C-alpha cells in the first residue's frame, strides 16, 4: 500500500528530556494503526508531530512526495485528548468553524456531519451549546468535527478515555465503519484489547521508542507469547518513565520557587509507623 505519511529517524526533545528517539514509521492508505503505550510513552508527542503541531528535533515527517507535514494539515482530521470544544458555541458551530478553516463549504460540511451524527445519535444535539455536554457527547462532537471536511488521515488521541461503556462502544463502531469505508486512522490508546479490536496494525511505544510494529498476530509470533498483554509486558520490561514533558519546559526559577514553598513529606520509617499503631 502507498504510504500517506512517513516518519524517518525522528527524535523529539523537550529540554533535557528525549520524548521520542529515532522513530521510523509509515502510515499507509486504508489502515488503522494503533499507537499503544503507557502514559508518558510518547504517543501524544508522536501524534502532534504527525499533525505538524511539533517540529522534530531531528529527522523528518513528510508526505510521499517529500513535502513537509504542515502542508498535509489540510487533509488531516484530529481529535486531541482534550477534545478542544468551545463551550459557548453549539456543536454545529464548533464543527462549522473547523470545516471553514479547511475551506469546506457549510453545505458539504453539514452533509457529512449529519450522516455521521445520525450514526452517533448526535443529530438532535448539534444545535446545543457544548457547555453542558457529557464527556461522551464532547468526544462524539470532536469526532464529527474531525470528519466534517473529509480528511485523508484521522488522528485520534485516546478517543475512548474517560467514556462510559456505551459511548466507548459507539466510538469504536464508528472507527470500524470508517475502516470499512477505506479510511486511514491513527488510533492512540493504552488499552491493548481496544487496539486489538479496532486496529490492523499495532505500534507499541515505550519510553520514546518504538518497541514493536506489526499486526497483532505478528506481535504474538515475534514475542513468542499467546496474548497481546504478555507480548506487551515482554516488550516493555524496563520501568516506564513518568510523564515529564511539561516539567521539562518549566523555568528553573519557577521550579525552585515552588519547591521552596512545598513542605517535604514526613520522614517516617515503617517501624515507627507500626510502633505508633
Amino acid at each position, binding site marked *: 500500500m502507498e504510504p500517506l505519511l512517513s516518519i524517518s529517524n525522528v527524535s523529539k526533545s523537550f529540554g533535557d528530556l528525549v520524548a521520542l528517539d529515532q522513530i521510523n514509521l509509515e502510515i499507509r492508505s486504508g489502515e488503522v494503526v494503533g499507537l499503544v503505550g503507557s502514559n508518558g510513552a510518547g504517543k501524544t508527542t508522536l501524534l502532534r508531530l504527525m499533525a505538524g503541531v511539533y517540529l522534530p528535533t531531528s529527522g523528518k515527517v513528510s508526505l510521499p512526495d517529500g513535502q513537509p507535514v504542515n502542508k498535509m494539515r489540510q487533509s488531516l482530521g484530529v481529535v486531541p485528548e*482534550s477534545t478542544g470544544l468551545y463551550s459557548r458555541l453549539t456543536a454545529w458551530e464548533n464543527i462549522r468553524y473547523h470545516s471553514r478553516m479547511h475551506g469546506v463549504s457549510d453545505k458539504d460540511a453539514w452533509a457529512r456531519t449529519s450522516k455521521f451524527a445520525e450514526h452517533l445519535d448526535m443529530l438532535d444535539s448539534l444545535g446545543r451549546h457544548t457547555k453542558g455536554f457529557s464527556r461522551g457527547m464532547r468526544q462524539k462532537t470532536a469526532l464529527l468535527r474531525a470528519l466534517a471536511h473529509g480528511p485523508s488521515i484521522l488522528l485520534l488521541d485516546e478517543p475512548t478515555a474517560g467514556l462510559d461503556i456505551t459511548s466507548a462502544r459507539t466510538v469504536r463502531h464508528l472507527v470500524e465503519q470508517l475502516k470499512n469505508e477505506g479510511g486511514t486512522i491513527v488510533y492512540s490508546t493504552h488499552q491493548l484489547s481496544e487496539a486489538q479490536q479496532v486496529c490492523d496494525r499495532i505500534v507499541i511505544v515505550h519510553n520514546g521508542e518504538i518497541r514493536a510494529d506489526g499486526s497483532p498476530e505478528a506481535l504474538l509470533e515475534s514475542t513468542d507469547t499467546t496474548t497481546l498483554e504478555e507480548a506487551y509486558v515482554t516488550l516493555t520490561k524496563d520501568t516506564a518513565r513518568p510523564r515529564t514533558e511539561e516539567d521539562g519546559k518549566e523555568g528553573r526559577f519557577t521550579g525552585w520557587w515552588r519547591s521552596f514553598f512545598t513542605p517535604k513529606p514526613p520522614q517516617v520509617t515503617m517501624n515507627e509507623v507500626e510502633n505508633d499503631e
Partner: protein
Amino acid sequence: MSKVAMFRVRAIAKKEVIEFVRDWRTIMAIIVIPLLMFPLLFILFPVLLESEAAELDALEISIVVQSNELDPSLEDAIVGAGIMFELESLSNLTTLSEPGEDMDRVRNLSVDAVLRIERVNTTWNYAILHLSTSERSNEAWNRLLDALNQWEDEEVERRISDSGLDVNATLDPLRWDGDVGQSDVATSGEQAGMVLSLFIPLVLAIWTYSSALQPSIDMTAGERERGTLEALLCLPCTRLELLLGKWAAVATITGVGVVLQIFGLLFAIGYLASSSLIGLPDLSITAILLLITAILLFAVMIVAIELALAMRSHSVKEAGSILAPMLLLIVFPALFTQVINLDGIESVWFAIPVVNILLALRELLMNRIIPGHIVIWAGTSLLYAALAAYYASRQFGREDIVTSLS
C-alpha cells in the same frame, strides 16, 4: 496575504467575537460598565453630594461660647449662621486651643463645638474646639468660621471707616476692568480642547490596556488551559493567521469599549456643565485623522504585547498575574504626561514609548499640528507596534503553547 488566508483570519476573529458576545459577564465588564461609569460618577455622585449637603444644612448645631466680653455683633453673626449657643465665662488657660476640661464634652458630642474668644487690647484671640471625625462637629466648625469671617470683615470695614478712609479704595485698590472671559483670546473650541487634552489621553491609554486584558487572556492562555488551542493548531492555518485573527478580535472589542467609554465621559461632562462650561473642541480634519492614527498605532502595540505575554503564560492565573501589574507601565507615563508643558517641548519626548502617543493625543486635541512631532511619534510608534507584533508572532510560533499546566 492570500484570499484564503484572509478568509481564515476573518473566521478566527468572527468566532472569537461571537464567543465573547455570548458571555454577558464580559460584556458587562468591558462594554456596559465603561459606558455607565462616568455618567454615574459625574451625575449621580454630585446628586449624592448635594443631598448630603442639604442634610448638613438642616442640622441643628448647638455650641458653647466661652468669653468674658462677647461682642453683640458677633453674637448676631453666630445666630445668623444657624447656630444655637450657650455663653460661659472663659477660664484661665495657657492657650485657647488647649482642650482642658472641655475635652470630654466635645469628644462625646454633648456639644458640637466650643468657641473661645477673648479681647486682647485692640485685637481678638479665638480658638474652636471640635472633633474632626464627627460630621456634626465639622459642620459646627464650618458655620462658626463663616460667622467669624463675616464678623471680621464687618469689624475691618468699621475700623477703616472710623479712621476716615474710603473702605472700597483701601480694601480693593487694584480692580479688573471689564469681562475677564472676554480677555482670553483662545476660542471656546480651543479651550475645550485644552480641557479634554488633560484627561482624554489618560482615559484612552488606561482603558485600551485594561479592556484588552480580559479578551487577550481568554483567547490565548484561556484556550491553552481549556485545551482548545491544540485542536486549533492542527488546522491548516498558520500561526500568523491565528495571531492576526485573535488580534483583530481583541482590537475590535477594545475599540468598542474605548469608544463607549469616551462617549459616556463626554455625555457626563456635557450633562454636568449643561454645555456651557465645555464645548466641542476645534479640530481640523487632519487633526482628527491623526488622532485616529495615533490611537490605532497605540492599540496595535498594546494588543500585540498583551496577546504575546498572555500566550507565553501557561494558565489564565499566570497571565493575569503578569498582565495586571503591567497596567502601572501605562498609568505612570500617562500621569507623568499630564504635567509636561507642551509649549517648547523637546522632540525627544515624542520618541518615548507610551509617552509619545499620549503627548501626541494632547497636542492633537488642542489642534496643534507640528510636522516634526508627528514624524517622530508616528515613526517611533510604528516601530514599537512592529516590534510588539514581531514579539507576538514569536510567542505564537512557540511549540510549547500547546501544553498547559492544567
